[in-house]
């Protein structure tokens, strides 16, 4: 139990601590600390774009907010050779899907059986036993340690565990970064069974061992006495997808090759690395929608961005979707989907957050149109055909992967009910469109953006990029962020000098070889990460956590790169972009002590009224921490992970550097409860009901993007039993 003498809150002292914000610099002096770990988000494959690029003429100092807008092009896409290929049809399952009732967007019963809780990715629970009034009484009911943990100091790479506990079949299912699948009793945490895939513990595609949990399927009409009428799935770094009977933990012999599908059989590009399945498949009816992750920072060419639709019981391939054309694949790749997806079964649509093409920071080899890259793309669930697509970054040369499932919601705007979706992005934009057509809910404008400085050979630049008019950007990227005076003073003017040596003309300032490079605010660290947007359908309030992180990217020609390369971390440091004429370096802007060069807050929790698109409230979330020292909470923390929201008017979230789990009032944003976890909880929590009691569960696994702290803890809370 974490309740310990030293942890007992003493409000007066806490207040004093908060007021001693400035003095904290002393602590930083005493205990130099990079506020942020050297690592940045790395999940995966990122890509690049294509584009309609004409190289440009006048470089517009793009104050990105200035609206000279042209109207946005909503592309209904049928992309030539990109698109879907119907490989086979899994006979009756299509018909079964069509007959199934739709999953209501305002749920009638609590469901938390997937990475984002529900297929609409709302992360919403209608449970209301825990309320804003009583959440302060929450107590830890049980915790479970998997033992699958590594800090990277030995032979095994560090673990990054971003799993959401899945509640289904009266069981909690989790996958681990050592690629074991474990079933737990939801009321006690007692282990029911576990299965070891015996997968390689090598960092084949990522710098660390990653896992984002499991997914769950059950037959609508189960056959009595037959195994595998309920199945849990988990993928591995070495491209294997396992299917286990949810009751027994035994392999489902009827699925692929005795329960194991070799996903790498579809890697037709090169053998340097496998199609890692770190994100479990998205289960849509009787289909498994499967993406993959790779190494697109390292290589110019990568396998095509592809979704595989599989039969949930047999693993048979039904159709594939490819985001890039066959011609483009010869020199580029990725534009993959490495995170979870969402779906509207009633309307037969699957929504893909598509990442950028490779190489990530140079697009001279992919100057043609690639309208499905860095997009939200809606596919027909049964055929994989593109229904509509909206590209959020044209000719992406910033690694702005769309990294979270769009959140589906019915909203009322100006008295009209709209079937909408919200797509959060790394840039801190929230794009809101009609989920049936892809059309704007609030205008999304094409605005001129900065063009190159002439130093990057072969590059072309998109003349405009889409900017949402509402909701307002979660962070102000229109001008260079202000320098944090404290960090600059402690660094002896280091931040000012760095700022002077960074090029920035607003959002979408392209990479350069000059000086220290181009400032990006933010880059791959987000903005918003894979936790995405939560939504309360009753009040029509969207909840999202965002990070404020300044990074800078520089391109090096081959010769200079070989000299400069000093290694890389989790999405930071140097990456070769083999095959491209430039290697790249991406860093977080910090002084020599590791203090951020830009002003706090470093992360916020934001509530948006979706009737109007206006911000209801925004609060710094969590506390930054380094070497154990907590910074004042008013400075906030960068976040990885996401929220869950309940009908009790409570928002639950971990995600912050200080590894605390918190509850906030949905109405006001006031912090109502907190507890200490073993490591940052870098996925969404789950909320479930078991035997009449409401629980909230977190996985505290840590992520080196945030800081070098790892965990193997599953921790579950509930109100005291009467």
């Amino acid at each position: 139990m974490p309740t310990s003498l030293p942890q007992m809150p003493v409000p007066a002292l806490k207040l004093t601590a908060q007021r001693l914000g400035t003095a904290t610099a002393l602590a930083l002096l005493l205990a130099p600390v990079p506020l942020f770990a050297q690592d940045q988000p790395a999940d995966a494959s990122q890509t690049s774009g294509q584009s309609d690029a004409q190289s440009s003429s006048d470089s517009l100092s793009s104050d990105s907010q200035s609206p000279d807008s042209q109207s946005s092009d909503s592309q209904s896409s049928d992309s030539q050779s990109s698109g879907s290929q119907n490989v086979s049809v899994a006979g009756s399952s299509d018909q079964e899907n069509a007959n199934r009732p739709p999953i209501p967007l305002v749920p009638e019963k609590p469901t938390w059986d997937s990475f984002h809780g529900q297929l609409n990715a709302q992360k919403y629970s209608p449970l209301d036993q825990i309320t804003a009034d009583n959440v302060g009484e929450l107590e830890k009911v049980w915790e479970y340690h998997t033992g699958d943990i590594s800090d990277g100091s030995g032979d095994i790479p560090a673990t990054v565990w971003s799993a959401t506990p899945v509640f289904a079949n009266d069981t909690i299912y989790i996958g681990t970064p050592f690629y074991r699948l474990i079933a737990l009793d939801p009321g006690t945490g007692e282990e029911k069974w576990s299965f070891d895939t015996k997968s390689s513990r090598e960092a084949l595609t990522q710098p660390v061992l990653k896992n984002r949990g499991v997914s769950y399927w059950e037959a609508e009409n189960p056959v009595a006495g037959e195994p595998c009428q309920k199945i849990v799935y988990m993928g591995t770094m070495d491209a294997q997808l396992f299917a286990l009977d949810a009751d027994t933990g035994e392999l489902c012999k009827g699925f692929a090759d005795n329960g194991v599908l070799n996903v790498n059989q579809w890697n037709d590009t090169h053998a340097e690395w496998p199609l890692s399945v770190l994100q479990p498949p998205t289960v849509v009816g009787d289909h498994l929608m499967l993406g993959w992750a790779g190494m697109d920072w390292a290589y110019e060419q990568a396998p095509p961005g592809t979704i595989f639709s599989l039969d949930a019981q047999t693993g048979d391939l039904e159709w594939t979707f490819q985001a890039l054309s066959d011609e483009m694949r010869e020199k580029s790749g990725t534009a993959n989907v490495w995170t979870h997806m969402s779906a509207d079964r009633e309307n037969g649509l699957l929504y893909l957050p598509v990442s950028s093409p490779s190489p990530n920071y140079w697009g001279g080899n992919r100057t043609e149109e690639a309208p499905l890259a860095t997009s939200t793309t809606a596919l027909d669930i049964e055929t994989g055909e593109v229904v509509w697509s909206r590209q959020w970054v044209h000719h992406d040369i910033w690694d702005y992967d769309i990294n979270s499932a769009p959140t589906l919601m019915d909203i009322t705007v100006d008295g009209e009910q709209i079937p909408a979706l919200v797509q959060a992005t790394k840039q801190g934009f929230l794009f809101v469109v009609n989920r049936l057509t892809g059309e704007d809910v609030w205008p999304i404008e094409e605005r001129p953006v900065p063009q190159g400085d002439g130093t990057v050979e072969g590059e072309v630049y998109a003349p405009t990029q889409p900017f949402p008019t509402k909701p307002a950007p979660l962070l102000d990227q229109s001008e260079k962020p202000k320098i944090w005076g404290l960090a600059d003073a402690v660094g002896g003017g280091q931040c000012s000098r760095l700022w002077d040596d960074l090029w920035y003309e607003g959002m979408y300032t392209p990479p350069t070889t000059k000086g220290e490079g181009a400032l990006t605010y933010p880059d791959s660290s987000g903005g918003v990460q894979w936790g995405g947007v939560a939504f309360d359908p009753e009040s029509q309030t969207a909840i999202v956590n965002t990070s404020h992180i300044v990074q800078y990217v520089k391109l090096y020609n081959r010769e200079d790169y070989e000299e400069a390369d000093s290694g890389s971390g989790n999405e930071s440091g140097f990456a070769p972009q083999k095959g491209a004429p430039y290697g790249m370096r991406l860093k977080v802007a910090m002084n020599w002590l590791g203090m951020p060069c830009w002003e706090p807050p470093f992360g916020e929790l934001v509530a948006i009224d979706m009737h109007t698109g206006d911000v209801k409230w925004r609060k710094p979330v969590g506390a930054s921490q380094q070497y154990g020292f907590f910074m004042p909470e008013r400075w906030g923390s960068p976040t990885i992970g996401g929220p869950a929201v309940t009908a009790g008017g409570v928002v639950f979230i971990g995600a912050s550097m200080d590894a605390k789990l918190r509850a906030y009032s949905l109405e006001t944003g006031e912090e109502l409860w907190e507890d200490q976890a073993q490591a940052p909880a870098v996925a969404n929590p789950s909320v479930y009901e078991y035997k009449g009691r409401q629980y909230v569960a977190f996985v505290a696994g840590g992520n080196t993007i945030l800081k070098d702290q790892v965990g193997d803890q599953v921790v579950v809370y509930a109100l005291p039993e009467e």
Partner: protein
Amino acid sequence: MSQSRSFRAGIIVLLVASLAGLAVSLYAYFTPLTGVDGTLGALVVILTSIALVIMTLVLAPLSCRSGRVALRVLILLDLVGTGFAGLLLHQWWLTAAMVVGLIGLLLDMASPAASKSPAHS
């Protein structure tokens, strides 16, 4: 209160506070889920608490006036630094212990005997 008792009380309060601070620091470092377990910050306050205990024990019998003044300055810095670190580590009881230690130090400094020979001599 006699001068010797006042002097002794200050030292005793300081020593007890130092030992309490050490106990809290050890707890914070070694106990899971304190939020700072295994961190450099918690290790640093263990070391500064140990230093505080040692300096207090050295101070008690010290008869050299300049030595006592120097040691008190070091103890004061240690108390303030450890107390502040306690705030940043959210180890409120560590900070409380340092406040008590500060009171002990002030008692010791306020004692006329403090500038003379040690009470037990």
